């Protein structure tokens, strides 16, 4: 018995060790990025692994002053707000009709919309690029927002339609008897009950738009319209040899999402776990 207990203890220690090691690996790039950003170029060239001797803030100042990081970030925020808002409104209306109203083609529409989730975004870019060139929509906010909104919408509709179906039918019936129209029911009954699903959507979709590089690099080519992700791909090439400076840029670029993640852990974790099944 004692033997067995000690083997359990050894097993637990091994499991702890595996988790600790995995957590360490998951954090290494973040730690490297932060530590290196606080070193001077000279210090990094001598010591790549150790803790910074004395904290150097200069790199952060240089990034913020000499590179348009804040304006890139502003553009990314505009993209996220615009496309997530547009997609959420469009998807709420559509998913409500699909889940709660009778009409021809509702099942077909949901199946079609859902299957679009498996179509890679890169397949859509050629005709949209040609069309946007003709319509002068390249490097415009509205042009890119529509594309992002479209790309995230199939997932939004799928998630919302699934969720709206779980709202008890009696609630509708009594509201209808009181003379409430569909729009009122959607606004006053269905949406408040679906807040968790909508939070999930906002988390998953914002992450997608904020992190995207492909659409940003093709449809927002103007320096003034660049998003953060497109911006850092230019930035890192320009300062190829200045590792601490580059890392300061990456710390600034990753800060918004990391801070949101730490503050809203619960929503993120729930959102990621629900969104993963998409």
């Amino acid at each position, binding site marked *: 018995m004692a033997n067995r207990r000690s083997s359990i203890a050894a097993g637990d220690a091994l499991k702890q060790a595996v988790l600790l090691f995995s957590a360490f690996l998951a954090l290494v790039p973040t730690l490297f990025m932060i530590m290196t950003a606080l070193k001077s170029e000279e210090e990094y060239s001598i010591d790549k692994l150790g803790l910074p001797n004395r904290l150097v803030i200069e790199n952060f100042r240089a990034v913020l002053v000499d590179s348009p990081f804040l304006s890139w970030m502003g553009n990314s925020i505009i993209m996220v707000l615009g496309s997530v808002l547009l997609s959420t409104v469009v998807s709420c209306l559509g998913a409500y009709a699909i889940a709660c109203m009778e009409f021809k083609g509702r099942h077909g529409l949901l199946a079609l919309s859902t299957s679009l989730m498996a*179509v890679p975004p890169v397949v*859509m870019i050629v005709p949209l690029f040609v069309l946007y060139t003709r319509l002068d929509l390249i490097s415009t906010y509205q042009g890119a927002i529509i594309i992002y909104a479209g790309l995230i919408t199939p997932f939004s509709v799928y998630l919302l339609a699934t969720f709206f179906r779980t709202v008890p039918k009696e609630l509708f019936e009594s509201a209808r008897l009181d003379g409430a129209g569909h729009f009122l029911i959607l606004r006053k009954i269905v949406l408040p009950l679906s807040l968790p699903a909508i939070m999930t959507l906002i988390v998953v979709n914002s992450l997608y738009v904020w992190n995207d590089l492909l659409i940003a690099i093709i449809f927002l080519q103007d320096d003034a319209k660049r998003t953060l992700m497109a911006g850092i791909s230019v930035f890192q090439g320009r300062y190829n040899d200045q590792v601490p400076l580059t890392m300061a840029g*990456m710390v600034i670029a990753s800060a918004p999402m990391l801070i949101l993640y730490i503050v809203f852990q619960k929503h993120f974790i729930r959102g990621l776990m629900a969104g993963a*099944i998409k």
Partner: protein
Amino acid sequence: MTRAQSSRVAPYLYVLPLVALLLFVFGYPLVRIFEFSFKMVRGIDGPWIGLRNYELILSQSLFWEAVLHNLQLLLAIPAMVVISLLVSVLLYERIAGWRFYRIIVFVPYVLAIPIIAVVMKRMFQFNGPVNEILRWLSLDFMALDWIGSSDVALWTVIILIVWRESALGIILFLARLLSLDESMIEAAKLEGASWWQRVWYIILPQMRGVIEFYVVVSVITMLAAVFAYVFIIGGGRGGPGTSTVVIEFYIFNALIRTSLPGIASAASVLLFLVSVLLIFPMFRARRRAREEEA
């Protein structure tokens, strides 16, 4: 308009914006890539040229090299599955501190791919910290030119992909594990089943669906959603040489750098057809994953 009439029209008004948006962002391009792929497009349109675009790309070695690179990326998937399973099962056992570990192992999925790629690119530089550690461990033969050598660069991309995409696997698997019926596992424990036996005979069989789903989603990712990784690691050129060129990059190049929308469309059509083939297994796997949970 009477009430009955309005309620017949109303649903269509509700889905109208949705249909319009999907038609614009998916419908229009999907029709147009087929049309463009048979045309010599200059600027916005051009004459029909039959199958010439397809003949051209299928006879181009760069195209096949790109295809091969995408297929090589599939090698990341077995590693991703094993790592995700191991970590998610350990988290599920609620080892001391599991909530804390859970927050940390999700971090790779929260960080943007371009940021991670820039950081890893610096870590894997020839005179960077990774090689410094390898030399310090007397593993000099492992201290490769991870980014600058055309034999190694794609493997570095694979390491990066495994590192990040495993986080998605952990998220998915943990979600499934938390919905398992624990009584069977408890019973097995009382019967004296070892950890391996419990995982192998009780937990894994119940996770078939979600593992299948993760594999199919990952196949789609490896074939058609790795642009951000290779764009940064390959320095925007698929380099060194052409060693990190994948299909997405081939399309990007044909469209933006050489301005040949016809060629880019033909490659898009081929990629689209492959993704259509994958839609059915994806739906089947998702259905099975959800049935398991119910």
